[in-house]
């Protein structure tokens, strides 16, 4: 790891200033559980790290009838246990409980989870050049290590977004609050993420001197319930191979406000409007559920060594729907 200067501003404005002063060579650090790994492996190098750790306001955690506001600096452990995350919001606690390890959940933050870099083994190896690191091509498409790659295509780079919080937050129609020098903007989380077609070296639309300060979750529809399921190699510590956030409300026996978002199968978390449309307004009969699971994965174009993710994904979607609708799993 190369040396760097460490800044610990007390305010978001201070962080933006410190970023600006550091130009291209400055980087924000929150919990650090992703960044330290990348620094140690010499994947990245910065002359200046700007810590968000001393900014008390970034750990805010509020909820009322209008929804939730969660500071980007809130830890994942806080999400696991906070009494605000019940009913429709319990999907967030469920997702947080499945992230990494108890240790990392005490360190990692909501903002860090949303801004984490891909787990593609090629990106993570300092001796392999790849598009994300400024290389000429993507070695992953030719490799047999494709478990952390997309099954829905990529624009040159096939790495997937590994966030476990993004799918449930997208299902809850959350927004990102982004601070910059001139003030603050709130954008739908769906516009926060951006795939390789925009810029292969990043996974979101934050510009260099912006700070993700909070996520805002609007009030959920009456009776809405969700589930987040994650399939991984080991039951602790691993990143998802496939994940799904599913939720809906049942009104007079019919599904409404159906939301389905897939994680870890595409360069950015993937909402499934086709699958939602199959279910919206229908009774939760097996034929519709099967059709929705199929619709979610119909556009899939897996690589030679990750077709298994499609099959697991379909099964996971069915399981998530059964869980929310309290049907017997089949």
């Amino acid at each position, binding site marked *: *790891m*190369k*040396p*760097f*200067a*460490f800044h*610990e501003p007390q305010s978001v404005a201070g962080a933006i200033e410190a970023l600006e002063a550091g130009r291209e060579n400055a980087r924000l650090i929150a919990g*650090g*559980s992703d960044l*330290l*790994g990348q*620094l*140690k492996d010499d994947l990245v190098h910065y002359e200046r*790290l700007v*810590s968000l*750790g001393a900014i008390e306001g970034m750990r805010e955690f509020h909820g009322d009838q209008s929804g939730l506001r969660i500071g980007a600096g809130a830890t994942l*452990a806080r999400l696991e246990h906070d009494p605000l995350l019940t009913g429709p919001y319990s999907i967030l606690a469920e997702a947080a409980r499945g992230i*990494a*390890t*108890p*240790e*990392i959940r*005490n*360190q990692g933050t909501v903002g860090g989870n949303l801004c984490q870099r891909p787990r593609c083994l090629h990106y993570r190896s300092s001796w392999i050049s790849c598009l994300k690191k400024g290389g000429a091509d993507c070695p992953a498409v030719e490799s047999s290590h494709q478990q952390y790659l997309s099954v829905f295509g990529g624009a040159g780079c096939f790495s997937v977004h590994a966030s476990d919080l993004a799918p449930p937050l997208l299902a809850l129609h959350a927004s990102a609050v982004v601070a910059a020098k001139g003030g603050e903007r709130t954008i739908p989380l769906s516009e926060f993420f951006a795939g390789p077609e925009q810029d292969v070296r990043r996974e979101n639309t934050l510009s260099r001197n912006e700070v993700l300060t909070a996520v805002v979750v609007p009030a959920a529809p009456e009776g809405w319930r969700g589930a987040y399921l994650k399939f991984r190699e080991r*039951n*602790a*510590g691993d990143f998802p191979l496939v994940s799904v956030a599913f939720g809906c409300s049942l009104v007079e026996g019919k599904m409404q406000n159906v939301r389905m978002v897939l994680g870890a199968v595409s360069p950015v978390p993937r909402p499934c409007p086709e699958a939602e449309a199959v279910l919206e307004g229908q009774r939760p009969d097996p034929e519709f559920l099967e059709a929705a699971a199929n619709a979610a994965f119909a556009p899939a174009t897996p690589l030679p060594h990750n077709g298994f993710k499609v099959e697991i994904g379909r099964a996971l979607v069915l399981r998530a729907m059964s869980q929310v609708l309290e049907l017997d799993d089949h």
Partner: protein
Amino acid sequence: MKSSVKLTVNGLEQEHQAEPRTSLLTFLREQCGLTGSKRGCEEGECGGCSVLLDGELVTSCLIFAVEAQGAQLVTVEGLGTPHHLSPLQEAFATDGASQCGFCIPGMLLAATNLLERNPDPNEQDIRKAISGNLCRCTGYDLIVAAISMAAELKKGARG
């Protein structure tokens, strides 16, 4: 550039010079001379370096020492002494839960943290609490048994 990092480890104040890139783990082992916390994976996966930082279980390999400025730390050296083992250490020793011993400091801190929050954990709670700690000797069953034995011992002591 080095700066002074001051923190409290096991009740004793420690102040040493450290570069920003020095991890808390390196600071503890090389500057404080406390080698109980183990350097395993260096990337947050094994839990060998786990310590309590202001009461929270964290991996000291993924924290810079400068970030722990002013913090209260507990490492395995702070749990007991050879003549006065903590109830958990006692149970690990009696039960034969330690094989090579490399994972044990992290396991003990994860377990100490668990019993502080939940004095009467079931097996599931215990397995979850140590889910960030890998035992290369794969002796999980005896470790889980030792933690539940320690919970019993402590309950007995409380009477």
